[in-house]
């Protein structure tokens, strides 16, 4: 049995008795263990727990209310799973074991999914290359000398390599969509408030969303449908009905208006990426979509706005790591204040410190209005740009990243160059709108290229439909160099 099957195939095979939950989970565990020396995608693989859980699903007489019965899934190591570690890729949490499940995990387990492991990520989800993990970077399965993207690089690589059909990540400025593009898989960031963040370790609270990786858009629809919806444990989840996302994917694109913002496709965009996007636009025309020009005049300020707001929120959220209640505590500190400072110095890596300091600076007395408040106002203008654009179209197509995967070490000493890699993705988090990255070709160096579709609030159904119809017409069947 190949692990590169979709969730829907696996469901059918389990239902028909061609395989069992144990068989499916064992295959995933074998692949995860075999490839981890090469990819470093997993920080923890729970063979024993996953097989026990698979067995309990196999003896379940009625699986009709379990839409993910026996489906193996991997979870980014900043989402709490009881019985497993949550390190956030950081020394300061290390082998912290949360005493509760995130709401998304409870919902997945209720649907019959089996968590096989926790995936590597940039420390506290801060990074675009995975080079900020305290436990070594994840390698890109297409070329192990290149980054998988970040911060959810482990989840992206594990899905791309065919270890598991689906995985969860988190997306604060592109941390699901960017690695999805660089690894050649689907990456969905839903509307702000669509999925509960209870049990997701906080980074930028007005930006964070849990996101889904899959090879097939229909599989992403299955997972979204399982985990979406209001949660009393997260006050930011909205009381908006969860639609039949799987049903949406089957609809044709006749009459769908697809916006293209050519003003965003100028300087810094790789020629091969531009060509792939132009081809995708043509493919959508062929599928019956109407192409309309849109403009997002404030999008050029998005990186500046994002790195003020995200770092400000991070500096506040990460104040809780002080060595008192959980995680790492530095030794030999004579007083409480020394202990805080030493713990945080030894526990956090350079990028996390850089962002905490930048956030502290923009919030500090005398600078708050000039930086933080100003950024929140420009954010309003950016949101208005999107609202206006969505009067003319149902979704907007952009590249996901300016270039395909870059080499390790290429941008690590130049934080601003690294941040500019997020130019196409941060806008969705600032505006709160959903976005999906869909593989749309390979470069001449056989590196995946991703296109991004952005939708209006609660437009996940349209995005999944656009992604699924594109995948059906232009199947992306290439396999990475490293795969199960």
């Amino acid at each position, binding site marked *: 049995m190949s692990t590169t099957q979709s969730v829907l195939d696996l469901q059918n095979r389990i239902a028909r008795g061609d395989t069992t939950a144990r068989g499916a989970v064992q295959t995933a565990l074998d692949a995860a263990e075999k490839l981890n020396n090469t990819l470093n995608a997993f920080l923890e693989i729970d063979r024993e727990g996953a097989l026990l859980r698979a067995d309990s699903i196999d003896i379940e007489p009625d699986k009709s209310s379990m839409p993910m019965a026996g489906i193996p899934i991997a979870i980014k190591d900043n989402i709490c799973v009881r019985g497993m570690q949550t390190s956030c890729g950081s020394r300061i949490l290390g082998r912290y074991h949360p005493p*509760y499940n995130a709401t998304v995990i409870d919902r997945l387990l209720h649907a019959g999914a089996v968590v096989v492991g926790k995936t590597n990520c940039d420390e506290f989800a801060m990074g675009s290359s995975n080079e900020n993990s305290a436990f070594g970077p994840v390698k890109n399965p297409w070329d192990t000398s290149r980054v998988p993207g970040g911060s959810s690089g482990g989840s992206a690589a594990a899905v791309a390599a065919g270890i598991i059909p689906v995985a969860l990540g988190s997306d604060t400025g592109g941390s699901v969509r960017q690695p999805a593009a660089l690894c050649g898989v689907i990456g969905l960031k839903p509307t702000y408030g669509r999925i509960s963040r209870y049990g997701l370790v906080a980074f930028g609270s007005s930006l964070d969303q849990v996101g889904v990786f899959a090879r097939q858009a229909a599989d992403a629809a299955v997972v979204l449908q399982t985990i979406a919806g209001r949660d009393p444990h997260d006050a930011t989840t909205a009381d908006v009905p969860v639609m039949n996302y799987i049903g949406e994917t089957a609809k044709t694109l006749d009459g769908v208006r697809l916006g293209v913002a050519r003003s965003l496709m100028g300087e810094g965009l790789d020629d091969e990426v531009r060509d792939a996007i132009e081809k995708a636009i043509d493919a959508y025309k062929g599928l019956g979509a109407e192409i309309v020009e849109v403009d997002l005049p404030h999008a050029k300020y998005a990186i*500046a706005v994002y790195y003020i707001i995200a770092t400000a929120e991070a500096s506040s959220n990460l104040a809780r790591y002080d060595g008192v209640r959980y995680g790492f505590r530095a030794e030999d500190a004579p007083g409480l204040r020394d202990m805080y400072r030493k713990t945080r110095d030894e526990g956090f890596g350079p990028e996390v410190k850089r962002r905490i300091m930048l956030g502290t600076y923009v919030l500090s007395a005398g600078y708050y209005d000039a930086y933080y408040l100003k950024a929140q106002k420009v954010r309003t203008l950016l949101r208005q740009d999107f609202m206006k654009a969505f009067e003319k179209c149902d979704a907007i197509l952009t590249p996901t990243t300016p270039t395909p995967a870059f080499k390790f070490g290429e941008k690590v000493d130049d934080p601003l160059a690294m941040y500019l890699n997020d130019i196409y993705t941060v806008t969705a988090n600032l505006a709160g709108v959903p976005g999906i990255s869909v593989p749309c070709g390979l470069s001449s160096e056989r590196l995946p290229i991703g296109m991004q579709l952005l939708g209006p609030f609660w437009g996940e159904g349209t995005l999944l439909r656009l992604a699924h119809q594109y995948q059906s017409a232009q199947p992306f069947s290439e396999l990475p160099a490293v795969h199960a």
Partner: protein
Amino acid sequence: MPITEADIEKIAQLAHLDITADERRMFAPQISEIVTYVEQLDAVDTSTVEPALGGLTPEGERTESSRPDELQPSLGQKLALDQAPDPAAGHFRVPRVLA
């Protein structure tokens, strides 16, 4: 605005970070460059614009998120202390606070 090593030291103090001289030398030009980059926002006229604090959608704003003020099950003392670096007698023990 240029950020000096002295500024970095002050920010690190505010953020409870005990950074080294090497880190100060690395962070000062990097944070300076980022701050200079974000200052391009000064060019945007925001005199009549409200800030987008919170990031909620209109539907999110309308969602009732309060609940009756009733006792609900919680972690309990044992679980809450389970991951503490230095638990003692049912408490989180920390180094001395006063010199």
